[in-house]
């Protein structure tokens, strides 16, 4: 084999691999990208039950109910709209009323059936007293940045 041919073979193999990878990526993108909706988006667009999506907002205060059997029902709100969420399983440790939460699942008959509930946490949480002290000193930097390991509750 000549040097040129040999190089062609390598380029060919590389292109083949890249092509295969590109095809895989495209196919996977189509099926596995999950769009994020706010409660307002969800009530406006009303996606069908076949679409998997993420719903994010605050857990509405006073909305958490536990009808038994490990099921938990709560509302996610963006203060303008709120959507009822049903989930079976253990919610993450940081799940609290009034806190930010993201649920992944499908919208069925106006109820969001979640199979995964996530709550973000990072090292920059703080109790109110310390926050006060920092604010007074003009050193407040709390803004939800930092390395957020995601805490998840997951169910099948």
């Amino acid at each position: 084999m000549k040097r040129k041919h040999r190089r062609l073979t390598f380029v060919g193999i590389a292109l083949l691999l890249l092509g295969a990878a590109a095809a895989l990526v495209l196919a996977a993108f189509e099926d596995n990208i999950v769009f994020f909706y706010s409660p307002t988006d969800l009530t406006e667009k009303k996606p069908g039950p076949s679409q998997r999506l993420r719903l994010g907002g605050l857990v509405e205060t006073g909305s958490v109910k536990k009808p038994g059997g490990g099921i938990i029902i709560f509302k996610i709100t963006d203060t303008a709209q709120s959507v009822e969420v049903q989930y079976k399983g253990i919610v993450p440790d940081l799940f609290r009323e009034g806190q930010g939460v993201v649920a992944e699942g499908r919208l069925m008959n106006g109820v969001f059936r979640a199979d995964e509930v996530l709550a973000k946490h990072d090292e920059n949480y703080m109790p109110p007293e310390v926050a006060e002290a920092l604010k007074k000193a003009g050193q407040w930097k709390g803004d939800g940045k930092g390395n957020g390991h995601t805490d998840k509750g997951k169910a099948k």
Partner: protein
Amino acid sequence: MTAEIGHFALVLALFVAVAQASLPLIGAHRGDPGWMALAKPTAILQFALVAVAFACLTHVFVTSDFSVVNVVSNSHTDKPLLYKISGVWGNHEGSLLLWVLILAIFGAAVAVFGANLPPALKARVLSIQAMIAVGFYLFMLLTSNPFDRIFPPPLNGRGLNPLLQDPGLAIHPPMLYLGYVGFSMAFSFAIAALIEGRVDAAWARWVRPWTLAAWCFLTGGIALGSWWAYYELGWGGWWFWDPVENASFMPWLAGTALLHSSTVVEKRDTLKGWTILLAIITFSLSLLGTFLVRSGVLTSVHAFATDPTRGVFILALLVIVIGGSLALFAWRGPKLVSTGLFQPVSREGGLLFNNLVMATACAAVLLGTLYPLLLDALGGGKVSVGPPFFNTVLIPLMIPMIAAMAVGPFLSWKRSDLMPALRRLRIALVLTIVAAIVTYAVHGDEPVLGVVALAMAVWLGTGVLTELAERIRLFRSPLSESFRRLGRLPRASWGMTIGHLGLAITIAGMAGAGAWKVESIQVMKPGDKVTVGGYEYRFTGAKAGKGPNYKFVGGQFTVSRHGREITKLTSEKRVYNVSQQPTTEAGIHTTWRGDLYAVIGDAEGSGGAFVTRLYFNPLVVWIWAGTLIMVFAGALSLTDRRHRVGAPHRKSSAVSLPGAQEA
């Protein structure tokens, strides 16, 4: 006072680094030995100054000096000492200081132990190291000073996130950073080689120990992080394709490719440009990883909006380092002439195949990680790219690579034939098929991918052992002869054999835990029984208690199989006093067959009933056992004779020198 000393030391270190970045480089350009020699003292001085700064920050943390913002944000008086110390790097500012400290340690190590390096190469390498350091010093001093004061100081701090209060996580970041920063050595050597316009076997041999050490640390760091997530986050998973994890996985993929391609440069004097490019990419991804995790860009692009100086600085730094080095590569790269020719089917070809797959996988992970950020930045809406995406793309890519991994070591350099190699692997092939059939018979056709993955692990494992047997001529020559050969194998080849074996074990673990994990969520009253994966979990009730800085509710489970008690598991739900943040401690019993794993959730009603989550995770411990073996293999290879006796002298003809001796 301590904080000011630290701050001052950091400023001094910046100036020393500026001198180290410029003078030796100019000296090397002019061929002035006096200026080149400046690299050594400046590197050592810079290290000493950062060490002082780091010691000051540690002191401030240990003594809980709440006039320093960083301590207020991340520490608390009633925290155990270990976590006061790990709090030093458990935050953005402190982690940057740790990063630059490690960078300075590596620089000083080259300065002190690099006596056999040609002076011009050494001067250039240390200059480039210092340039990276200058970027980090500026970033810290201008946007993220760990020594900032606060007035009036509060009485106590906010504490460290309780989830991070864990011995595994205390050493996880330093391990990762040793890996990331270790790749900076490969990067500096690559840039220095580009400036010199020369890459040869000697160069490859000088770079190898640094790359290998960095790879070991990174592998260990990733494994530690995954293990922590497994036992601490409490939902039985060990890898989540979280962007934070991907950030460390990308440099690992690129670094693994680099490790393999540099062997080709060393032995066969070819693939030079590619190896240099890989060194640049690996370090660029390490930088990206550091910033992705630590800057908050990942949480949301809007972190840029809340603190634009930081974000813009990071972007500028990335553009300068990555753009600058790639531009230099485009300009000087074509000058690197490779002499070694090879056929597609050959050892080089196999290693190149490994490289191509690793690079493609790395690109796919990069795309999946950055796509949500890019789309959001362009106003295309918020999306998330989750595990299904990564699994669909990576698993099909990895299967052919692992298939090739068993064959590669049988191929000879330069040109080879596939058929004889495959013929020698026939026993491995038979064993693989048997394993696949047995798995299939036990589990049915339920996840086919699980059967395939387990079979691949067997193929790789038996393939590696076959190669070892071939090498020592087992059963083809007297046993004593085989033993003699076994004893004479170089440690580097032991490293390869054991490392690949470790990967086979890890893959088996991934296959088992990924495909046949059994999970069950239910409400249990005391005395209730649930069977999970053939194990009977009996809930014996929960009681409350108090830990050093938290309160807890602990649930007890008795696990038995075929009526025989195996173990008792305790899972705790803790609430930490300072933050009022709850965390969950899983109850785990590890065996080689799989882990028994129980988690207690919220109380349900008043009768002492709780929501519980029970798992059987088959083979999961193999994942970490395998990675541990890989790290050991890397360390073993690091002690190979050719690294111990020092690198060879440069010759005009770029042939590797067997048994070269240190002058």
